[in-house]
């Protein structure tokens, strides 16, 4: 399993009406890596992630996950997707949210219960599980959202800006969780527009105006362009000014 490709995009294009949002993009993500997608807002990161999650339909090109063609009902079960919006029912409690979403993946009984406790533990929300989500802080909602994405033990996790609007301490704790998940053998795709977060990824794709302008590990990207920081790499490839 180790060197197989988890995500393979071949000439993937997405257009809304006459505007092309993703231009003929190809990309490979390997098993077990934390893969970052870096780029300014509006670059097309969310659209790419949504296509991989099976929510948005590509206009052309091929998308394969675990060597199987998407979209597919079976593949959906292997993906955990955390969107920019929390996607939680605010008038339900934390545990009620988990119960509902786990039922959507057909989980039930003892297995469901154990799994809910596991993810609550992982995101450190066990003490707050009976609280109504409306009363959660922003960071708690983000963490519960992550917990929901992890519920059904996906092999691939897609996180769209998981740390946006979150304080540095919490951001660190989310990254620690991502490392834990990586150790368990999960593949993680994470988008960000924060340059210093890009350094934490195993490999990185730089996205700009609907196209990938560079791919590689943070170190090799810096080396190739003789840059000190990821920001310089981005400027080198993109030419333009970076507006996070």
């Amino acid at each position, binding site marked *: 399993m180790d060197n197989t490709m988890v995500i393979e995009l071949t000439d993937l294009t997405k257009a809304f009406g006459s505007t092309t949002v993703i231009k003929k993009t190809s990309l490979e993500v390997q098993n077990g890596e934390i893969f970052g997608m870096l780029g300014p807002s509006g670059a097309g990161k969310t659209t790419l992630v949504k*296509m991989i999650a*099976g*929510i948005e339909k*590509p206009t052309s090109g091929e998308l394969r996950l675990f060597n199987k063609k998407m979209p597919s009902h079976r593949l*959906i079960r292997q993906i955990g*997707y955390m969107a920019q919006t929390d*996607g939680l029912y*605010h008038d339900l409690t934390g545990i009620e949210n988990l119960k509902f979403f786990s039922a*959507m993946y057909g989980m039930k009984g003892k297995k469901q219960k154990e799994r809910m406790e596991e993810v609550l533990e992982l995101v450190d929300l066990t003490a707050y599980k009976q609280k109504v989500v409306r009363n959660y802080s922003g960071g708690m909602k983000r963490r519960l959202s992550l917990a929901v994405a992890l519920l059904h033990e996906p092999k691939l996790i897609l996180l769209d800006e998981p740390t946006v609007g979150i304080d540095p301490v919490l951001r660190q704790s989310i990254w620690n969780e991502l490392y834990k998940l990586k150790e368990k053998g999960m593949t993680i795709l994470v988008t960000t527009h924060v340059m210093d977060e890009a350094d934490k990824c195993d490999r990185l794709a730089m996205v700009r105006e609907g196209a990938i302008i560079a791919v590689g590990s943070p170190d090799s990207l810096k080396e190739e362009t003789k840059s000190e920081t990821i920001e310089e790499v981005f400027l080198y490839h993109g030419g333009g000014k970076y507006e996070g």
Partner: protein
Amino acid sequence: MRVKAITVRIIKQFFHDKRTLAMMLVAPLLILTIISLVFNGEDSVPSIGIEQVPEPVKELLKEQKITVSEMDQGDAEQKFREGSLDAWITLEDNQPRIVLEGSDPGTNQMVLNIVQQAIQSPGQKIKPDVEYFYGTEGMTSFDNFGPVLIGFFAFFFVFLIAGVSFLRERTGGTLERLMGSPVKKSEIVIGYLLGFGFFTLIQSTLIVIYSIYVLDLLMIGDFIWVLAVTLLCAFTALSLGTLLSTYAHNELQIIQFIPIVIVPQVFFSGLFDLEAISDWVSWIGPITPLYYAADALRDVMIRGLGFEEIAINLAVLFGFSLLFSAANILALRKYRSF
């Protein structure tokens, strides 16, 4: 200066939200037009059947603004059931006998007045025997439009609540999360129907019981059919509400569906005399769900009819729910690639 800035901002916002602007300008005109069509239409002309009525009285009746035709009692009763006759008059032992269709107190009174005028000869006081085919003498206007209101309220509240809650599913990102899970689109729509159906059942039961036992609304038929119609009516509202919420960006825009979707139905569902509505808009009634719900509720509550007579209405309401649900499943395709 700040006042000016606020004023300009509000005007600009209106121009950016064209739908709200249109609603504010066009909706009142639309509703006024409907009202004028409903109230300025032709006067409804009662249709009366006669048998063995003396020639002079017949002549006097024909001078009135009514349609008169000869028929026997059997024919008349058949026409009452079809709803195409308002009264039947005959003479038995020199005593006039009037059988009223009876479900609309307004029409009853109108027919009685006309007949009284026709049979009254000077110096002689004739009191006709009056019978009611449906309803009773003591029937009030509320008894007549109450059944329509029951259907209306079930429809109105379910439409709003379902619309808003499905909208929240979209704006809150939970719909996206659901679409990323293996759940089927039809499962979402059916789940919504059942979940809301639970509360709809409680609501319908409460409305019906309260109207009948507390407000003393006339109730001749079977409780179970009133409940069945109300429930199906609410299901239609539920499926239509969730479907239309796809075309709303926020709660305000759900509210804006009221003058477009709800108000016209009220005017064409029989709360006002349908026969008086101008001919060129009378086709609107039969394409609205509330029309069928109101008709069936009146059939059961005032006329005491059972399943056979309301089966078509129930089927139409069911068809509406099915149609809207199917459209909703199609509309959800926008949110998923498979």
